């Protein structure tokens, strides 16, 4: 009996182990399978847009593909999230094409093979990747594995309120920005801030570290992919600039101002209300201003750079939507035709960009006469094309290093809790590296 019981237990354990192993490897790669792109078939495309005008924009962009490939029917499924995409791939039943609003997970998707490596298809099609700006090429691949293609993009610039600027020109360097911020700030008799010239805190909506620190020339990671906070003096330069302006306002005044701001995507936004003279924001703010503050007289310019990098003025932070073919896609060749069309066809990109108010992601589309966007949008097209523009590099654990630096800045640096900045940044390096190691980086 004991022998039989032991055998049964062993068999059950083996069965459970097999089930577990099967579960872990579900959704095997079928990149080479599926009908040829010339055969009649239907491909399923998951995307995140959900508002009626957004869904229509996607349909309009796809119309050209339908004409070029009448044998391929495209079934669009809107409102899909990264979690759903991952679960579908994990469950072995993914769509043929997936897109994501964030570049954060590209490192994980490329490393794990959740999204197929597109390099062989790109080579076979003879696609020229130089039609994408350098930063865009960098956020769509990880360690040489290109598992994503760019589909529209976002660029960041400086918005300024012309009335509050009182004839001043937008600043080009951080010292000019600081001087102008001080000049344009209006305080109440008790010292609290009525109008902020420029609010440097990372808690001010888009003034996050990844949008401002790059203007100081920071290198987020070393060549071997480790954290670089203590090794790169540009981080200290950024932090010291941030703190000097916060201290000039007074930290308590800054907190009071931040708490009174309301929501970022409502008409109470302080820039739209005239409570800040200058603010860093994405290109989409032009659409919000059109809708929520049509009377606002404003201009846009690239975000200033640190004084020692004056030649880099014109660049900024860029990011964007990505699209790819998931592991296990059933119609991979047709899916590639679709991805190639949507990410490189100027007509499709321009249609899409016009409808969504985003930056088109190829250099030819950026100079298309078909673009119909407000005049202030020109800055973002220029920032996007600028070779000094940068993005945050992908890692196997998304943008964890950015999140940790942001938390450090917000919770320790800005309130003045750090006595030894060098030591604090070394500790931060250690935490980021440990976290990367945890994720297999």
């Amino acid at each position: 009996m004991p022998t039989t019981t032991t055998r049964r237990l062993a068999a059950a354990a083996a069965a459970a182990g097999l089930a577990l192993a099967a579960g872990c490897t579900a959704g095997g790669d079928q990149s080479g399978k599926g009908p040829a792109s010339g055969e009649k078939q239907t491909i399923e495309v998951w995307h995140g847009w959900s508002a009626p005008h957004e869904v229509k924009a996607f349909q309009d962009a796809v119309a050209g593909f339908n004409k070029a490939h009448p044998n391929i029917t495209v079934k669009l499924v809107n409102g899909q999230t990264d979690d759903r995409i991952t679960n579908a791939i994990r469950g072995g039943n993914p769509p043929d094409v997936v897109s994501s609003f964030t570049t954060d997970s590209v490192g994980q998707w490329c490393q794990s093979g959740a999204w197929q490596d597109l390099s062989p298809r790109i080579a076979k099609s003879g696609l020229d990747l130089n039609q994408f700006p350098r930063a865009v090429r960098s956020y769509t691949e990880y360690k040489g594995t290109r598992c994503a293609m760019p589909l529209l993009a976002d660029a960041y610039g400086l918005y300024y309120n012309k009335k509050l600027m009182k004839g001043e020109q937008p600043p080009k360097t951080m010292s000019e920005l600081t001087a102008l911020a001080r000049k344009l700030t209006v305080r109440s008799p008790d010292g609290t801030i009525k109008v902020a010239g420029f609010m440097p805190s990372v808690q001010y909506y888009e003034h996050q570290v990844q949008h401002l620190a790059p203007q100081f020339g920071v290198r987020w990671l070393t060549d071997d992919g480790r954290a670089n906070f203590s090794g790169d003096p540009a981080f200290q330069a950024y932090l010291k600039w941030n703190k000097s302006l916060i201290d000039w306002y007074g930290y308590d005044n800054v907190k009071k101002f931040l708490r009174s701001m309301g929501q970022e995507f409502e008409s109470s936004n302080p820039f739209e209300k005239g409570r800040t003279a200058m603010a860093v924001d994405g290109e989409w703010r032009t659409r919000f201003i059109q809708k929520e503050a049509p009377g606002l007289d404003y201009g846009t310019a690239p975000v200033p750079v640190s004084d020692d990098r004056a030649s880099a003025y014109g660049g900024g932070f860029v990011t964007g939507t990505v699209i790819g073919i998931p592991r296990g896609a059933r119609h991979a060749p047709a899916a590639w035709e679709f991805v190639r069309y949507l990410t490189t066809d100027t007509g499709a990109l321009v249609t899409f960009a016009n409808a969504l108010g985003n930056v088109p992601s190829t250099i030819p589309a950026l100079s298309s006469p078909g673009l119909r966007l407000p005049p202030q949008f020109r800055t973002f097209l220029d920032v996007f094309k600028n070779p000094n523009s940068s993005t945050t590099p992908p890692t196997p654990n998304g943008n964890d290093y950015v999140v940790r630096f942001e938390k450090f800045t917000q919770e320790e640096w800005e309130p003045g809790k750090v006595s030894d900045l060098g030591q604090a940044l070394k500790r931060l390096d250690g935490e980021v590296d440990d976290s990367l190691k945890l994720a297999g980086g």
Partner: protein
Amino acid sequence: MASLSARLPLPGARGGTAAARARRRRRLRILAFLSPWLAGFGLFFVYPLAATVYFSFTRYNLFTLEYVGLDNYAYLLHDRDAWTAMRNTLWLVAVLVPLRVLFGLGAAQLLTRIKRGAGVLRSVLYLPYLVPPVSATVAFVFLLNPGTGPLPALSARLGIPLPDFFNDAAWAKPGLTLLGLWAVGDVMIIMLAALLNVPASLYEAAAIDGAGAWARFRHITLPTVSPVLAFSAVTGVIETLQYFTQPMVAGKVASGRADLPGVQYSPGYPDGSTLTFPQWLYDQGFRQFNMGYACVLALVMFATAMAFTVFLLRRFRAFAGEEAR
């Protein structure tokens, strides 16, 4: 039962072999009746628990799996965010759970005394519990926001300034506690049912013996409702250890941030004060794909819940025993 059936002669049984067969048949019958529950228990408890333990020794990103031994456990020891999340969660367990039980008991006790309008008052106290947690949290943050909320403006006019709930790290957890007390309807309703079940004759006898209000509450009400108190405390602890939605929404709304391409809200605003253990588990598992490490966090949460449950059940048993003596 098995030993009894072995001693009693069963119909048709002939000698030891027949009895053994009958016992086997009886066991199989019992197992057949139990099988739906056993299958569910195995599938939905034993297997996930075993899988969680297994994955906790791996680096698992939902696609690739690598055995890493105790690395995930070692990482937990110096993961500052995990310990911040644990401290916040234990703070909420220590403050929110007892307050909710006391507040629920107090409200129920009050309702048993009120003769007129009790139905309306019951509804008023219960209704907030029916409000979806996301809506309730958003409303609370707006109501208490010093920049946009009417309550701070009103209190300032009255000369009693309110603290800056949800924006001040020192007041964010008390803010969440207020929200929890506002939605105490679930605890109140079971307390009310328990209080209404206390035999009136016991109070009458105690009154004849000269027992005052506190003595009646201490020696009659409390022992009688102690099973319900135990239930509320245990379920409250488990719910609070899994506290996710309210702190996530409160932090996000108070920070004024939205999820944007390339930017995700990091839970815990302000200054990590609303970061709870389940939020950190979610962040590690579903944002950073560290499923192996998330499994370690899940096991810690499971062990903590078990420890609290055993402790509370023992305390309440001791309490009931003391009363019985």
